[in-house]
């Protein structure tokens, strides 16, 4: 019965696809920002260049889900989208995705990584609390400048105010804090000026110290212990205190008190007498001030790089004077737009997602294959660690397997998975190396690791379990189609379907056959990449 239903469905899908003329890129409520993006990109096309056409619907859906929510669409969502013939279907998907809780959660994951890395060795740093705090802000779509001010000025305990965990990341390496702030919020790398003048940017050691002095009065005190035996600490602002440099600990320099001075030159009185200004509040204000030349541009560049696979400035956290944006006018226009709309990140994301540039097909051959920064094609990127983890969970149905009975198992698996694949360095900065550009440990994890191999098993509630329960043994054609929809977000071609069925038939049992089919799909390039 179920099998027959599925047959009807697939026939209907095929008919719909055959009759499809439009590419679904029409937007009912056109985003002026998207239009502006396409206009400014087109102005910088090389002479005679013709951008790739829009990608097909299945590709678009997988891409948008991965970029906006960090996870591939379910097989059911793909089926529904392929049936949808409305001309504005892509715009509706974009709006649904941006409004979904998964979007806020994924955004919070990325920001948490940017702010404190993956490293969880510092006992006072409660990464989960920061993640949860950010998730709440992004879910409400709070203005981003406000979010940043809250992070910089946060006080309170690491359990009650998740935002303080950003500063606590530097509790044992206080001198790093200024470099981290500049990198995260201004897209500037000034941390080498911590020890010496920057080799080719204009930053001097004195500039670094001036930035650091804003944080000279941050106090941290232990106030108890959590149920997890980890310390509960409070971050507060002391009424006085100065940053001193040089002297015994720093033999190359004379001992001196450093007063706060922002990279733009603004600072605090350096004369005698008490200085009761809230230094962090001032730093926060200067960071998000419309006159700050870096803040909006850095924010735009990060968001753009995430969705487009390449920043307008690369690397995204190195936007100093010696870097050249690929599209200066576009970067400027997006920064102005962001500031003019109360730092509404979702507006920016929507503009990008609805642009023709975002929805282009990839090109590995032809004149656009060589394009590196004109956005004539979609740039293929490997799935990031979280994207890969959650996508395997979704494709295999492991999420449903565990959700009911062992909800904590998912977190455990994720932590183990990240610990194995994300190599953490050093003690001070967040220079984790993401070994996701294709490495042997990653390949071994996918080939032999528990995530994929537990996932690609027939068990109640797993993708394969449901499939076999619902008649997959009898109608292998349909079962193969569903495995493709679940894993790759598209229907198999005729040849792929036939090969899959033959493969399952030749296996020791249908169960084994489907397990091996899903395993192979999850290990394939098509799964590993966002294209």
């Amino acid at each position, binding site marked *: 019965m179920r099998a027959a239903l599925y047959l009807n469905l697939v026939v209907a899908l095929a008919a719909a696809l055959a009759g499809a003329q439009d590419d679904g890129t029409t937007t009912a409520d056109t985003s002026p920002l998207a239009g502006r993006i396409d206009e400014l990109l087109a102005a910088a096309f090389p002479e005679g260049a013709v951008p790739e056409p829009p990608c097909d619907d299945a590709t678009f859906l997988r891409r948008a889900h991965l970029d906006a929510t960090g996870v591939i669409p379910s097989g059911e969502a793909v089926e529904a989208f392929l049936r949808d013939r409305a001309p504005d279907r892509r715009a509706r998907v974009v709006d649904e995705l941006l409004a979904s809780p998964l979007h806020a959660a994924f955004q919070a994951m990325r920001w948490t990584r940017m702010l404190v890395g993956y490293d969880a060795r510092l006992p006072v740093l409660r990464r989960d609390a920061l993640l949860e705090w950010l998730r709440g802000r992004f879910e409400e779509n709070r203005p981003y400048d406000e979010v940043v001010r809250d992070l910089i000025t946060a006080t309170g305990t690491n359990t009650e105010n998740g935002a303080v965990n950003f500063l606590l990341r530097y509790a044992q390496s206080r001198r790093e804090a200024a470099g981290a702030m500049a990198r995260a919020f201004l897209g500037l790398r000034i*941390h080498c000026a911590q020890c010496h003048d920057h080799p080719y940017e204009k930053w001097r050691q004195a500039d670094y110290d001036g930035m650091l002095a804003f944080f000279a009065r941050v106090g941290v005190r232990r106030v108890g212990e959590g149920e997890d035996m980890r310390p509960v600490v409070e971050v507060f602002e002391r009424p006085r205190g100065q940053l001193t440099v040089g002297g015994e600990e720093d*033999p190359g320099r004379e001992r001196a008190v450093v007063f706060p001075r922002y990279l733009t030159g603004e600072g605090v009185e350096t004369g005698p007498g008490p200085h009761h200004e809230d230094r962090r509040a001032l730093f926060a204000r200067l960071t998000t001030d419309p006159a700050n030349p870096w803040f909006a541009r850095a924010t735009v560049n990060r968001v753009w790089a995430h969705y487009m696979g390449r920043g307008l400035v690369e690397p995204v956290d190195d936007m100093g004077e010696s*870097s050249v944006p690929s599209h200066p006018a576009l970067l400027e226009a997006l920064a102005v737009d962001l500031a003019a709309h109360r730092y509404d990140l979702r507006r920016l994301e929507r503009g990008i997602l609805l642009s023709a540039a975002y929805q282009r097909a*990839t090109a*590995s051959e032809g004149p656009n294959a060589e394009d590196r920064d004109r956005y004539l094609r979609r740039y293929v990127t490997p799935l990031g660690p979280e994207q890969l983890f959650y996508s395997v969970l979704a494709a295999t149905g492991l999420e449903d397997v565990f959700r009911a009975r062992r909800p904590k198992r998912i977190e455990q698996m994720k932590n183990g998975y990240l610990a194995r694949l994300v190599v953490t*360095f050093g003690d001070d900065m967040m220079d984790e190396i993401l070994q996701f550009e294709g490495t042997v*440990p990653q390949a*071994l994890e996918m*080939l032999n690791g528990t995530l994929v191999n537990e996932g690609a098993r027939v068990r109640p509630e797993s993708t394969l379990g449901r499939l076999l329960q619902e008649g997959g043994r009898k109608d292998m054609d349909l079962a193969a189609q569903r495995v493709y929809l679940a894993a790759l977000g598209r229907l198999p071609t005729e040849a792929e379907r036939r090969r899959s069925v033959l493969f399952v038939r030749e296996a020791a049992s249908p169960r084994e056959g489907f397990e091996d*089919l899903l395993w192979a799909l999850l290990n394939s390039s098509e799964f590993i990449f966002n294209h």
Partner: protein
Amino acid sequence: MPRPACTDRRGFLRLSLGGLASALAWPALGGARREEGGKADRFILIFLAGGPSHIDTFDPKPGAATGGPFKAIRTAVEGLSLGEHLPRLAEGARRYAMIRSMTSREGNHDRARYLLHTGYAPLSSVQHPSMASLAARDRRAPSGPSADLPPVISINGAAPGAAFLGSGLDPFLVQSALKPIDNLGMPGGVDRARYARRLKLLEALEDDYSTRGGGPEGAAHRDVVARAVRFMNAEALGAFDLAGEPEAVRAAYGTEEFGAGCLMARRLVEAGVPCVEVVLGGWDTHQDNFTRTAALSGQLDAGLSALLADLASRELLGRTLVVCLGEFGRSPAINASEGRDHHPAAWSALLAGGPVRGGTVVGATDPEGAAVVERPVTVPDLMATVAVALGLDPAGENWSPSGRPFKVSDGGTPVAEVVGV
């Protein structure tokens, strides 16, 4: 330790993996190695992560107000004394050279670690390859038992990678020398025949992907999977397995993670792996410097001295360069938490094996260990020295993807007293 997945690895590989496995070996990038007198073709880096206190280990300053509570002990080499918690290294001092006049300017862990691995301060525009990846490039075995092992292996901690030389020369991380390597065996419930069937289907999927225009990304992924499969089935996999070593040997190295890592390093270079790093972390002693340095010194003393002795007795020391250092030294000033803070201005490095002249002491620091007063050696100088010992031309150029040339050593001069040039 990884258990052999099957009795006849070679046969399995040939039979089942077809093109996927055989066509894509670890990329052999260089030609045959030149045999030269005294040049090392193996490289072991013992990395003391966190920055060890030179004053409490390799450059003791008894009598100085900031010298700390440790005594200095005499060594087999005239003019060289060590911190009291390194007695076995003191005994074996003829095996290594000590540079006591290292100096640099990077006081941030990550930046200094990068510098000490690549010879360059981090730049945003390009990532530099580590010396190990560079050395492994033309020292890896094109065939033979070790050809299927990663050519750069990092034990007990991660190491900077190959950058533009390609992920094939990235260090493979063994998380802990005391634990089995993650994911190297076939998943439970899957036997050889079934695994081979899986790989065959995967190969067909990858064929389709490349026919549809998979591009360079698809080809790279395919390559990396093939390398992983070859590694799983490598004949030389037993080199990771310490179980066969006599109890006395394991005890001599020390049974903690570091000692086991040093023993694994010896087994790996013996099996033909060109570059191995063993990480001993915990030297970032802002608090309790003396308790912690004493404990770490005990591990270092056992592991490193056993490694040098073992390499020598197996006639491997002549072809294996061993370097031991951290990312910087620590301050003479003792802070309020009985700790010492970062101090890149003056610190020490130990070198042994290959053409290194054992028993040499280079340079000196002032009576407190704060500044270099004799024969300063910069990191580029050290890198040039390492390059010469490994038979690489310090002025040899590598090209980054953007077409910028990078010298093996950034303008450094080899320390002649150490490698005799």
